[in-house]
């Protein structure tokens, strides 16, 4: 097997007194599709945000694609990363947020071309071509000139996925991409994510409460509890015969909310 593309070693993240990631060890192989489940507040978003460099870590080391993410190799071992290093590392990842976070003052097309043009240095034509291909992939070719506010939540999230893909990341991070959507719009977003999951190269980390979906697309499911991975394994194992009591309770609560 290859070297893991993501490796968290003893990662600690605190917000003041609150320890959100508690000596987390976590690895992801290249091309692997990993789903993260767990109760609210267990640190699922924080893991993704640490990887996307939106949140610093207090202890431990994160390796992405063989290099430390939050550190640089200095003369005396690992030193805190410079902004230049972070920029280089960020290039490997894309993130899809729960609330889409599209740029509201830009058209859909501009949302997709902004970073390829100004970060990757693509020409306007190249960026536009890339955007159009991606809009076709997410089924929104006719919305290029629309503003985000003119789209449904499901459409906005599909644009957000296309926007992240336009940077050609090796790793895609999805933080509850369907949680903010009306139920009838969830399917169209999940379909796009599933089509991405069929790409062998792309590594995917997905935080979700859509258990059926997680079962179908993931190679591995990780159950987070209090800033650690309490249990992980292939989806059939986690969903059918979880070993831990906490996992059983959580799955029961999610799958049978009325009880």
């Amino acid at each position, binding site marked *: 097997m290859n070297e893991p593309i993501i490796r968290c070693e003893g990662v600690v993240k605190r917000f003041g007194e609150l320890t959100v990631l508690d000596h987390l060890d976590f690895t992801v192989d290249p091309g692997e599709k990993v789903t993260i489940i767990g109760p609210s507040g267990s640190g699922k978003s924080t893991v993704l945000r640490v990887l996307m460099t939106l949140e610093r870590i207090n202890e431990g080391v994160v390796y992405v694609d063989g290099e430390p993410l939050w550190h640089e190799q200095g003369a005396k071992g690992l030193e805190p990363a410079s902004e230049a290093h972070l920029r280089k590392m960020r290039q490997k990842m894309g993130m899809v947020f729960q609330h889409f976070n599209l740029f509201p*003052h830009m058209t859909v097309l501009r949302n997709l071309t902004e970073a390829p043009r100004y970060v990757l240095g693509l020409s306007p034509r190249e960026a536009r071509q890339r955007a159009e291909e991606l809009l076709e992939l997410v089924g929104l070719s006719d919305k290029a000139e629309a503003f985000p506010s003119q789209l449904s939540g499901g459409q906005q999230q599909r644009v957000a996925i296309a926007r992240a893909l336009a940077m050609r990341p090796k790793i895609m991070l999805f933080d509850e991409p369907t949680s903010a959507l009306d139920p009838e719009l969830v399917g169209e977003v999940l379909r796009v994510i599933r089509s991405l999951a069929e790409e062998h190269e792309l590594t995917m980390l997905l935080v979700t409460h859509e258990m059926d979906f997680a079962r179908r697309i993931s190679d591995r499911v990780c159950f987070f509890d209090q800033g650690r991975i309490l249990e992980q394994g292939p989806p059939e194992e986690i969903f059918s015969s979880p070993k831990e009591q906490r996992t059983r309770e959580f799955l029961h609560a999610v799958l049978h909310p009325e009880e």
Partner: protein
Amino acid sequence: MLFGIEWDTSTSWAFAWSILPILLRGMVVTIQASLLGFFVALGLGLLLASLKGVPLKIIAWPAAFITEFLRDTPLLIQLFFLYYVLPDYGIVLPAFLTGALALGVQYSAYTAEVYRAGIQAVPRGQKEAARALNLSERLTFIHVILPQAVVRIVPAMGNYLVSIMKDVPVLSVVTVLEMLNVAKIIGDRTFNYLIPLTMVGALYLLLTLVAAWGVRVLDTRLPKRGIPLK
């Protein structure tokens, strides 16, 4: 006679007509002081807001203190400081410049707050999305934050422009011949205050209405499609 223009006191209408050009001279001064003060306030306010946002306390703290001080003290104090204290340090400015500067300094405290609030009103997710796309800090500010902040900033700034105009008469205490001061001098010399003061009131109304209209026009010209404004 003022500014070499004679007045005609034979009838009320003749009087009003004859002092109109004099009052208009004052109005030009009022407009100039307002605009100059406004631009100083826009620049200095941006500086103060930026300094307050610096993570270093040694910079942010004094900026916050200055803003608070300016906001909580009367305009007249700043005016007196600039007019009577600066010359002690060898800086002698004409009354008009001193007055406009005082207005700008005073209002920079308010404009700083407008900038800060406008930028803060942009949701945090915008910055995070920009970062996830690897946009530089500079580009994030110019392409993502600023366009969404400006549409909130401009209307509020417009209100302060009107406020500044209404504060210009304070400059009369340091002899600036703005509109109200001119009216008062005419009154002192003709013993007729009613007509010049009424005319100044009407001219002020005209001035602020035009300014407010200008701000509204500017506001409607701003590209704000899609930006959710509360």
